[in-house]
Every structure is written in C-alpha cells, then in structure tokens.
C-alpha cells in the first residue's frame, strides 16, 4: 500500500540518488526539475489522446452506436491513427491571414493548458510545484488561453473565426467571476491558497462536497469550468451549426490538433481541480492516492461527456443570463453561508448553514424568474 502509493515519488528519488553519485549538486536540481516537466509534458498529450477516444466511445453509446472500433481492440489505437493523420495533413494558411498571429496562436494555446498541471496534486506528494498561491495560479494561467484563442480568430481574417473569438472572450469574462467567487469559501475554510494544503484539509473523508456550501460551490465551479473550456452546452465559440467551427475554422493539420489538445487538457485540468477542491483530491481508502485522483477526475470528465451527449447548445442571452443572474449572486451568497458554517460549533452549523443555503436558493430562483427563458411561442409556424 505504502509502496504503491509513492511509487512515482520513489522512482524520481531513485534516479536522483543515482545521479548524485557522480554529478555536481546543481545539475541534480536541474534534473529534478526536468523530470517533473517531462512527466507533465508526457501526461498531458497522452491524457488528451485517450480523452478523445473516451469521448467518442461514450457519446457513441449515448447515441446508440459503437463509436471507434476498427483500429485495435475497442478502437484503442484510434487516437494514434488520428495523430498520424493530423501530422501528415497539409498545413493551410489563408492568403489574407496575419501570418505571425495565425502561426503563434496554436503554439501559445497549449502553454497555459500544460502549465496548470504543475499545481495539481496528482497524489500524496505528487504536485510538481507546491506554490503557496497554487489555486490563484491555476485560475490566472487558465484565463490566458482565451487570449490565444482570440489571436487565432483574429489572425485568420475570417468573419466566422472573429465571431467565434468574440464569443469566447465574452464568455470567459462572464464565467470567470462566478468561478473565482465559488472557490472563495474553500479558501475561507482552509485558510490557504495552496492546492496541497486544501487536499490535506479534507483528509479522512471530510470532503467539502459533503457540506451545504461545498455542495453548491462544487456545482457552480464545475459549470463555470465547463463554460471556461468551451464544451457543450457552452460551446458557442465553436458552434458548428452557427459559425462553422468558430475560431479554428481556418486551421488544419497539426495546428488544429493543438487547439483540440489544449481544449481536452484544460477539460482534464478543470476536472482535476474540481476533484481537488471539493472531492478530497487524492484522499480515499484502500487504493493508492494517485488512483483515487484519476478516478475522481475521470468521473468529472464522464459528466462533461454526458453533458455533451444530452444537452443542446445554449443561446447567447441564456448563456449570459445564466452566469450573471444565477451563478454570480449564488456564488456570492454562498461565501456568507460558508462563513456561518465556519463560525458556529460543529453539530449546529450543519443545520443553520443548510437552512441558509435553502433560503438563498429560493430567493435567487424567485428573483431570477422574471428573466428566466420563457416557453417559446411560435408566431408564424402553426
């Protein structure tokens, strides 16, 4: 148990111990950094490859078909075949495109998606960097991918691309605020911004999702995260049926694959962070810690794919109304509920906070009723 728990950490230590024999101290530090970077740089793309497989398989089952099943058993080699196809495709750059911006956008979009993995605690002692502002680092870096998306959409010189880019920026600005507000209760209760100490505060099954405030904060955070990575039902920036493919209309081959990769890696990172903040991260009985983390993260990913197979795309006004009129006031009031929960003694706080949460829910739903989407009335079609 203990051995399997720390297998990766022990492996890294063994390499470093071996190198310490004949290399100067400072190179060992650099090698230690490089090992962490390499682990993330391999983990990210491999996760992305098999997420595409998982998504096609699960959506296929939801739609009553098999999904990929030709290359390898269960289509397991399909992502590799796709990768080879992407690499050998012709790279098309539109004649009127802004060449530099068009080229840089897919390169830059991957950087934040990989960087955020550095603060995720994959297991006991398995965070690449234990930053004391890890949570804020994650939120700050993940906003940067929007700039890359906008660069791509602007550099393409295509009306549909530009529309998609504008939608992405507007969506990010709206959903960023409830997202940050929904993690404030976690910071308030743990008193730390480090992802590692947030997990440590939940050890032994005291997951935040089991508290009244944590349950709703987890929902708000996860929905905002789904919106942040532009997945259905919040995929307006890509909206195939409305604006072709939005910001990546003019990209082909590996450049398109990089956009795709960034999207899937961000989706996994958001799932991992939801698991870290509200579902106890790597905490769990019997199995090694990193297995628990992956189980929780993949459960979140499964919910995202489930969304995709089930929900239709939102309209722009519904998208904005949902963020500003429902999620934002709810996330704000949730902070006060969490403060109540923290202030009162143990058995009483559950009842008081739960009651407060219920009142908040009712008040917000009644207040937002006026603006909630009405049943559509057809004037001409009868």
């Amino acid at each position: 148990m203990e051995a399997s728990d720390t297998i990766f950490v022990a492996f890294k230590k063994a390499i470093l111990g071996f190198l310490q024999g004949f290399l100067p101290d400072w190179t060992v530090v650099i090698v230690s950094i490089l090992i962490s970077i390499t682990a993330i740089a391999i983990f990210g793309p491999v996760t992305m490859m098999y997420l595409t497989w998982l998504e096609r398989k699960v959506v296929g089952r939801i739609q009553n078909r098999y999904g990929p099943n030709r290359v390898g058993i269960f289509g397991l080699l399909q992502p590799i075949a796709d990768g080879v196809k992407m690499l050998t495709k012709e790279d098309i750059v539109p004649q009127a495109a802004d060449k530099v911006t068009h080229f840089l956008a897919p390169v830059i979009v991957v950087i934040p998606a990989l960087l955020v993995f550095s603060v995720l605690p994959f297991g006991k002692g398995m965070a690449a960097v234990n930053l004391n502002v890890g949570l804020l680092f994650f939120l700050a870096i993940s906003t940067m991918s929007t700039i890359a998306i906008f660069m791509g959409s602007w550099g393409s010189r295509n009306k549909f691309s530009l529309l998609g880019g504008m939608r992405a920026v507007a969506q990010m600005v709206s959903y960023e605020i409830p997202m940050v507000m929904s993690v404030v209760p976690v910071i308030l209760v743990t008193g730390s911004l480090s992802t590692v100490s947030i997990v440590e505060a939940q050890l032994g099954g005291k997951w935040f999702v089991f508290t009244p405030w944590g349950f709703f904060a987890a929902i708000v955070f996860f929905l905002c995260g789904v919106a942040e990575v532009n997945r259905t039902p919040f995929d307006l920036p890509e909206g195939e049926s409305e604006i072709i493919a939005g910001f990546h209309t003019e990209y082909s081959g590996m450049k398109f694959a990089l956009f795709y990769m960034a999207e899937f890696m961000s989706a996994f990172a958001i799932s991992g962070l939801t698991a870290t903040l509200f579902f106890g991260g790597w905490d769990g009985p019997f199995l090694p810690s990193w297995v628990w983390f992956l189980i929780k993260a993949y459960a979140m990913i499964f919910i995202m794919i489930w969304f995709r197979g089930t929900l239709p795309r939102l309209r722009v006004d519904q998208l904005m109304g949902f963020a500003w009129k429902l999620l934002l006031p709810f996330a704000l009031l949730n902070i006060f509920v969490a403060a109540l929960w923290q202030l009162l003694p143990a058995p009483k706080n559950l009842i008081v906070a739960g009651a407060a949460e219920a009142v908040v829910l009712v008040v917000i739903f009644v207040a937002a009723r006026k603006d909630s989407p009405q049943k559509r009335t057809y004037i001409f079609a009868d």
Partner: protein
Amino acid sequence: MDALHILAKLGIFAAMLVTLTAAVMVVTLRNIFHCALALILVLLGVAAAYISLKAEFFAVIQILLYVGAIMTLVIFAIMLTSRIGDKTILQNNRQGLISFALLGLFNVFFTGAVLKTSWNLNPAAMAANVDAGVLGAAFMNEYVFPFEIISVVLIVALVGAIILGRADQ
C-alpha cells in the same frame, strides 16, 4: 548552488530584456492589435519581475487582473474601433525629436536623483514573508479605512457605469 544562482540571474535578465523589447514594440508597431499583444507580454514580464522578488501573490494577481481581465477589455475596445483592418496606423508625429530631447533632460535629473539616494534596506522588512494571509489581515485591521474608501469609490464607479450603459427606457 552557485551555478543555480547564475542561471536564475540569467533567466531574470532574459525576462527583463523581453519585457523591455515588448514595451518598445507596444509604442512602435503599426498594427494596433499587435500592440495589444505586445502589451500582454509586457504585463507577463512584470509578473516575472514580481516572482523574482518573491512576491508570488502579486505576480498571480497581476496575471489574473491585467492579462485576464483588463487586456480582454482592451481587445474589446480595439474590436470596436472602425479602422482595425488598416495595416499602417502611424504611432508617432513630427514632435518626436523635441520630446526625445526633453526626455533626455529629464533622465539626467532622474539618474542623478537615483544615484544620490542612499537606498536604506530594512532587514526586518526584507526577511518578512508577506503572503496573502498577512495582506488580508492588514487590510482588515491597520488599513481598514483606506480599504473601505477604495471600496466605496469602486462601488460608485460600478453604479455609474451601469447607469451610463443602461438601455434607455
């Protein structure tokens, strides 16, 4: 550990060089969207400077607010300008030479002032580890009055912006 320090120094100098180059690009590039992208690079460089001064909290807030929020607004503003397609928007005019001369004069005094000041470093302040918790406690205790005043100013600005932006009824 000496080699590591040299490497870190080199990294900091490289980051500063990139920041300064990008700052020059902001005021010389002819395409206004490229200027905005260069400004993002400058802001990231400033965040790197904060990290090198061990102020991670400020670095992250810098990225979150300036790159994440304010630059998004700048991009929106650029999208609303009409002549975005024009490739040549001159950023300078004929008064460049005079302003350069005046700036040089100012810099002479400025350099003199920098050299004359004896930079007293307070060892207690240097050693203090100012993290987000300490900052928050200071805002709520010692500096609660300025903090509240800033909050009121921001609220007034917010309400004013909503009233100005509201659709006419």
